[in-house]
């Protein structure tokens, strides 16, 4: 009776499905066995007619059959469809659909890289205005009025006492005015110099300044910090040297050179055949600067440093004309 019908249906289904090899036939089978009015449904209808005692067993059998048929059907269906797909001709060499990306300017990328290294060394990041007073830009930084040191930085004046800042160093004053030691921060930003525009110089550029003031800051620690920075930024294998220089706001002052990474110290056009590249200026904060911000220079010592971003990026990427940074030719921007 129903039991036999189950057995028969199982055999018939397997026989039929094993002969299947196309989608059309598959649909026929689905209609025949699995549809609302298909053979399986009919058997379930018959289940209502069997006796109470037989019902659980036959019901279970019938459920098993339904699962078996459904699983088999699905697996055959998957294999047929998969075959069909692979037989369809897809040219996988077609280019992907264009998705546009933006990018940070190479100067921003360079600043960010420098920022990240110093943040890792425990520095905060501070900013200041581009229009500065003579006081912040020069006087507080120990550039006396009428001193030739002012000639080191050709200045755009906006009035007798206001100017476009010539370096990011005034932010040192601003941050020390606001905070008592310890102060430890870097100060990225844009600066201006009243120079004729050429391949080597532009009327504005970018700098990162840094300062650390506390009770026991020494020149030795300045060296340690900057060497750590230079190795992270320029490469572990660089050699370095510090040589005396002059900045009004530091004493002693130094310039840091690293071995030219193009010629590795052998001498080339970029390092003017010296084997060395000047990468930053630094020194111990001059007591007169501490005086300007009301720090006790007997109690506190500190170091400061500064570097030019354009020069750094030019060296790093082999760019030989500073003006290209500010042309914003998209063909240049896309390279970074």
């Amino acid at each position, binding site marked *: 009776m129903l039991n036999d019908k189950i057995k028969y249906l199982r055999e018939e289904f397997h026989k039929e499905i094993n002969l299947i090899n196309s989608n059309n036939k598959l649909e026929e089978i689905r209609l025949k066995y699995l549809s609302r009015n298909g053979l399986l449904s009919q058997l379930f209808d018959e289940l209502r007619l069997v006796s109470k005692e037989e019902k659980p067993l036959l019901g279970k059998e019938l459920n098993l059959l339904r699962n078996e048929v459904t699983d088999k059907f699905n697996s055959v269906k998957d294999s047929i469809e998969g075959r069909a797909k692979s037989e369809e001709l897809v040219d996988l060499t077609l280019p992907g659909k*264009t998705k*546009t*990306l*933006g*990018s*940070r300017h190479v*100067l*921003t990328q360079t600043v*960010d890289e420098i*920022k990240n290294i110093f*943040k890792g*060394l*425990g520095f*905060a*990041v501070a*900013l200041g*205005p*581009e*229009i500065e*007073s003579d006081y912040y830009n020069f006087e507080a930084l120990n550039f006396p009025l009428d001193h030739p040191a002012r*000639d*080191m930085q050709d200045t755009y004046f*906006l*009035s007798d*006492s*206001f100017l*476009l800042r010539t370096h990011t160093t005034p932010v040192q004053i601003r941050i020390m005015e606001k905070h008592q030691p310890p102060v*430890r921060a870097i100060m*990225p930003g*844009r600066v201006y110099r009243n*120079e004729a525009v050429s391949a080597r110089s532009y*009327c*504005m550029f970018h700098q990162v300044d840094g300062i650390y003031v*506390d009770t*026991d800051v*020494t*020149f*030795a*620690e300045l*060296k*340690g910090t900057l060497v*750590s920075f230079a190795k992270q930024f320029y490469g572990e294998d660089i050699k370095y*040297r510090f*040589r*005396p*220089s*002059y900045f009004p706001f530091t*004493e*002693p002052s*130094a310039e840091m050179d690293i071995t030219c990474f193009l010629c590795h110290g052998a001498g080339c056009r970029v390092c003017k055949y010296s084997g060395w590249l000047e990468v930053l200026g630094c020194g*111990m904060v*001059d*007591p007169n600067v501490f005086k300007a911000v009301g720090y006790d220079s007997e109690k506190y010592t500190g170091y400061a440093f500064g570097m030019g971003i354009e020069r750094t990026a030019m060296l790093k990427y082999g760019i030989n004309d500073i003006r290209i940074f*500010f*042309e*914003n*030719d*998209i*063909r240049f921007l*896309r390279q970074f």
Partner: protein
Amino acid sequence: MKLSLNWLKELVDLSDVPTSEIIHKLTMSGLEVEDVIDQNKIYENFVVGFVKEKKKHPNADKLSLCTVSTGKEEFQVICGATNVDSGQKVVFAKIGAIVPKGNFKITKAKIRGIESYGMICSEAELQLSDNHEGILVLENGVQEGITVSEALSLNDTILEIAITPNRPDALSHIGVGRDLAAIFKSQVKIPAINIEESEEKASTAAAVEITDKKNCPRYSSRILKGISIKESPSWLRRRLKNIGLRPINNIVDVTNYVMYETGQPLHAFDLENLAGHKIVVQSTEKETSFTTLDSKERKLPKGTLMICDGEKPVAIAGVMGGENSEVTSATRSILIESAYFNPSSIRNTSKALGLSTDASYRFERGTDPNGTVYAASRAAQIIKQLAGGEILKDVIDVCPKKIEPLQVKIRLNRVEKILGYKIDRGKIREILIKLGMKIIDEAESQFHISVPTNRPDIEREIDLIEEIARIDGYDNIPTVSRISITLGEKKDESDFTNKVKETAIELGFYEMINNPLQSEKAASLTGSPIKIMNPQSADMAYLRTSLLPGALRTVSINLNAGEKDLKLFEIGNIFRMKSGNKIRDFKDFTENESLIFVITGKSRIKSWYSGEENEDLFDLKGFVKSFISKFSLDNVLQYSYNHEGDPFYELCFSLKSANLEIGIGGSVSKKVLKQFDIDENLYCFEINLDNLKKIPVPARKYSELLKYPKVNRDFAFIFDKSVTYKQVSDFILEKSTGLLKSITLFDLFESDTLGKNKKSMAFALEFFDKDRTLTDEEVEKEFVYLISVVTEKFNAKLRGN
């Protein structure tokens, strides 16, 4: 500054030290050697030749065919100079020589069919002078075959040193010699003054009076009589040329020589041209005009320090002498000025006149007030040797304000505290003494120092610490591998800007950086600009008031390069005058951080999967929307629209918060674009980041993910063309009972079939409730209701759903 190594070696015994070591140590002690010219190397392969024979070149009228002998060998050489002749001694560049001017190598050459094996040189080619009129003919006594270095004393090494502004003492050979002596533990041999004076007293031949004692604390002078002006001997001319000076005559040359020897600028007056044989140092009381010895008439501002004679000005003190008193070939008596002037007075004069000379350069940095007498005598001594005559008795030395050496204490523990390492006490002592410091008193823990007056840069303990550090060498300062880190607030004030940048990049924009300096025209477009007092040029004389002109300039550059599809942004400061036209205070202007987006060209290029599409105003609006949603300000900012009336944007929209202007933009007007030679559609939006920053960003909170299904329905209506999207969408949301959560316009078109001035808008609606599953019935009810209210309100016609 150029320095002669031979000269330095006369002053300091460096015989055992290789040149490379000298250069290295100078650089490492703060006198950076920027360039080295080794004459022996430069003039390698240049020898004295004897022109044995000169014939005409058979194939060229203007060329000569010469036979040049170097004693051992003879060479056939073609020469183009008209002054070449047989019997001359000349400078002969052999094959392989590199000619200094033009830096080219001599090779065997065929000139008009005849071979030439070298070149006969002019002074210009050898870079001995600018004289390129013919070849250099040497004295006949020179031996042929010897090197030119030997024949012309071109055997020096010239060091180009960058002297920092704090080191006026190093602007001379003796000054640099002092550093070398300290570095190499040697002595500077200051040339001894050994002069024979005449009976006649200088003070009877001339008188010096200082009126402006503040600006001229000391004026010393020597008088010489009976001298004869002539060309300086070759050793002196060569030495001056080597350091880049032009020889003039034996008096001027000596004053220059002594300046480069001692650092003290000197000036020689023709005594007979000084009215009343008198020098008066005084400042001008009114604007004066004066002709300097370069024959230029100059306007001197009131208060300029002048050297006058009994009647008139004869020199601008410390800057340049006057034409009326300069030494000429007829001069027989001279007064040598050796003075100390107040540095800032000379600097002001030099600045005011735009005239910087070797003398003013030294005076404004600070010369040695106690070195004037030595320099005057030193010059007198050499002049007597070269020009004869007699030196009058005594130096006239007027010194109304004696400048005494400063006294400074240095504590040894302070040296260690600053540098981070301990330097031996004995070493510190030695360095200080070698640098010319006098130890007045000393204890175990400190020295009491008298600083020589040639070191005006040393005023404090810290200055002495620097001296010790640089002579000991910065290499000796340890590079510690552990650093101390201060804990505490580590704020990054650039966080906000960084987030703005990141967002712009996520939206596919490239960052540009434009020059904030602009022409008045560009800067005035968008506000009242700040003027630069001393610009390089008119097109960079103002600060930008908006990022728009810079962005347009960049677009124009790219269009010219054939790059038409652009999505660019910039973040930068813009500046505006607030009140008045003069900046006296930070309150008089504004400096704001601004952001601009600019798009032009295609948003999608033609490709295998789609056609091309141009960027348009709604692309821009989409970017702006995405941008502000990154800052969670969608519901905080309001748009407003303006179809006309904005000077820059034809179609314009702006963003505002309750009380702040945030941004403005749209399609840039053709008129503005034309000014930048742009003939494309272009869309910009500029955002005031300082204002944006002020808006409190709603705190971000997790909202529970929806557990119940959403129900979607679409409908489309035909509206009058004047009905806006916003009117309809706002109305629908307003009328909903709250089940409708979002509404999206998914189709918009106009066509003849719809009727004149009609348009179709199709909306996708999304309904859900976060607490339960909605039933079909309730959605259907609301949907039907919405259709009816839209139809009624806008007189719209349902197109189907």
